């Protein structure tokens, strides 16, 4: 069967102006998939899907599967191959999108519009790393280790809070308020639209550098040490902001380790924890969802207490 082709030319990842936290979260997930999925929520037109597709183009050996809107469950988990069943009377398994996303990324744009039962299913498989299919008289299981990346706009409806904390990292993207960044975004996008080949050629070196950094970081990851007191610091931090469960601590730790690997540092330092804590924790806090300031300031305060400047 034909598979959807990747967009002919993606906007280069390294050419995305601003939105540093989103880019960092995606790179961390690429370095250490065990961090868990990435949720990108925020304003329209901030380049959420551009960044994900850019990352896919950056890492050509890593599969990036798009979950199209309106996809039915049979195509997601896999099902009986109708074509062969009809023509040859053969009962064969036709793998779905989950099989193709193995060892790569599964991207769901407008994740808040996806049927709840499909989101549950994706998160279950992402957590267990295995897809179990029991349907059409078939009984199949296959590995499906992937990083789930979801994006959406909260004005279309929020994600169920029960699902939020099952994503490893959560990023909030806002339209940059300053003229300089907005002009830069416009300039680059315009240049890309007009002459995509030339534009991409211009950024190839930068993209190559990012790719090399990610590949080196993956290589280095197992050798990164937890620095002195890092584990204690992470535990204190999580306790201070009131997240329950081990998952929060593990995510902060793993994300900090991936960041240390990305920056070629031999061990995890407070600086790494400080930068990954907001995306790793903000969606896990028991919070009043109407609290204007959101949970980020609470994390910042706790960070300042745990790691005094």
């Amino acid at each position, binding site marked *: *069967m*034909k*598979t*959807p*082709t990747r*967009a002919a030319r993606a906007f280069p990842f390294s050419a995305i102006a601003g939105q540093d936290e989103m880019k960092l979260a995606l790179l961390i997930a690429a370095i250490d998939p065990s961090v868990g999925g990435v949720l990108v929520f925020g*304003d*329209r*037109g*901030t380049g959420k*899907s551009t960044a994900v597709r850019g990352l896919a183009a950056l890492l050509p050996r890593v599969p990036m599967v*798009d*979950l*199209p*809107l*309106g*996809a*039915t469950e*049979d*195509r997601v988990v896999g*099902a*009986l*191959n*109708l*074509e062969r*069943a*009809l*023509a040859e*009377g*053969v009962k064969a398994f*036709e793998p779905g*999108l989950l099989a193709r996303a193995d060892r790569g990324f599964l991207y769901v*744009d*407008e994740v808040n*519009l996806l*049927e709840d039962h499909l989101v549950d299913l994706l998160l279950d498989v992402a957590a267990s790393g295995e897809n179990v299919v029991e349907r059409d*008289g078939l009984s199949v299981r296959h590995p499906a280790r992937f990083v789930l990346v979801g994006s959406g*706009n*909260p*004005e*279309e*409806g*929020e994600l169920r*809070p029960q699902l939020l904390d099952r994503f490893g990292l959560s990023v909030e993207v806002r*339209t*940059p*308020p*300053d*003229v*300089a960044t*907005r*002009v830069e975004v*416009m*300039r680059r*996008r*315009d240049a890309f*639209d*007009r002459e995509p080949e030339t534009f991409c050629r211009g950024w190839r070196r930068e993209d190559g550098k990012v790719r090399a950094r990610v590949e080196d970081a993956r290589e280095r990851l197992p050798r990164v040490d937890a620095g002195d007191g890092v584990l204690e610091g992470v535990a204190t931090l999580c306790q201070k902001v009131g997240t329950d469960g081990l998952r929060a601590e593990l995510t902060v730790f793993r994300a900090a380790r991936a960041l240390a690997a990305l920056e070629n540092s031999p061990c995890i330092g407070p600086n790494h924890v400080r930068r990954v804590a907001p995306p790793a924790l903000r969606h896990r806090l028991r919070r009043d*969802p*109407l609290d204007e300031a959101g949970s980020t300031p609470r994390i910042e305060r706790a960070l300042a207490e745990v790691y005094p400047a």
Partner: protein
Amino acid sequence: MNDHSACAAALLAVDPRGLGGASLRARPGVERDAWIDTLVRLMPGRVACRRIPSNVGDGRLLGGLDLAATLRAGRLVEERGLLAECDGGVAILAMAERASPGMAASLACAMDSGRVAVARDGLERSHHARFLLVALDEGAEPDEQPPAVLLDRVAFHLAPGLEDAPWRADDIAEARRRLPRVSADDAALQALAQAAIALGIGSQRAELLALRAARAHAALQGRIAIEPIDLEVAAHLVLGPRATRIPSPSPPPPPNAPDEAEQNGGEQERAEALQETIVEAAQASLPPGLLGMAGPTASSRGGKAGRSGPALRNGIRGRRIGARRGELQRGARVDLVETLRAAAPWQALRRRARTGRRIVILPQDLRLSRHEAKRRSTAIFVVDASGSAALHRLAEAKGAVLLMLADCYVRRDEVALVAFRGSAADLLLPPTRSLVRAKKCLTALPGGGGTPLAAGLDAAFSAALGARRAGASPLVVLLTDGRANVARDGRPDRASAEAEADQAGTLFVRHAVPSVLVDVSPQPRPQACRLAVAMGARYAPLPRAGAADIAGTVAIEMARHADSLRPA
């Protein structure tokens, strides 16, 4: 209102992919048809127009299995969806204000990528879907608008009038050839970005679309450099209608002014002057309601996603949750794809046994759709924002509503917001699950003025019936001190105002609309209690119960009513 709509059509014809399309806010009529005719006439070559009804299902929109053909042929036959059929042409979305969020997202995705990916019914395909979108917006109320994801992606939001388009298809073809060479300098980019910020436009797509519109305009005028007039037209057509605030008279200097100004002072001044003319041009096309609206409310109304789509599609209640083996009974719905899937493995065998039929389906293959019949709950908050309540405890009432909203959010219930003050009641927020929007509406709600309690009850009642028609079970949560002093006709007359309120309350009993009355006065008075009795409402005085208790009461009520309405 919009005096450049013919020009917008010409610009779309010059750069259809770059500009995305247009939204036409108009009743069906000559103006609208004429505008579409102009657009089609100007597009070089023959261009097909394809109509997309706003209630079309995913199967038809995206494509999927052609069951009839599959059964006939005995092999998988694909049915192309509307999006793929629109490739190379104009997609006309009828009644765009009714489009569901899911449908809007599919259209938006196709507009972004120029393709439609299908992963349905055992098929996986990807097709070209490069089209120009014309969204027909027939919304009557200010908050009835096409989904924001679509408005964000079409360059022009027009209210077309009858205008002559002084261009011919040849001019457009010429402009298209010139378009790739049209260049924009930094001053133009800077001016557009600053104007977008001054007008409170949140999405960066706006300035990018404005830039493309300016470029198309320059090409249409036979130039290869963007001039101020191109930017003015672009600002008028693209930025103005998206404004969420009226810019302050003198725009603030850009933050990077100091060092750059020293280097090229003339350049900087020129950019500032340019920006001022652009903002002025945009101001001629501000959205109609902007002047009368409080700032934040304007933007939250702009964020309306088409939520009013019918909840009960094809007479099927609830979300489809799968298929089961079963026999055909009255009211059962056959799931054709699953039935086919069940029959498929046996075809080779059965064909040997019976001749003449390509596909043999036996009763044991039948699969029926299962639907989850759970009803949505819609909490309609009715807030008394009048002077008497505001004096007392509008702030606390807001706090209580916020708590209850948070609770609804956790249970995925919808909320709607009605407020009454002065002489009338408004449905500030139609039923939505978006907490962000509910909150924006509530915080922007001013207090003061008379108390048209009956008008508030009327508005709540019609919102409740609306929710019921859409398949949800409504619960009205009224926050008031029960004191009315403005009659339905707007006269300040306490006696008739209170009589009318009681009378309006009886409608709730008669139509079995469940309600809770939260008495917000510091010393509960008989009026509120009497109204609660008239409405058949549960009475909860706020002073005794804290806001959290009230949120709890409402949660229990909602669960109770949703259960009692759930079909067995």
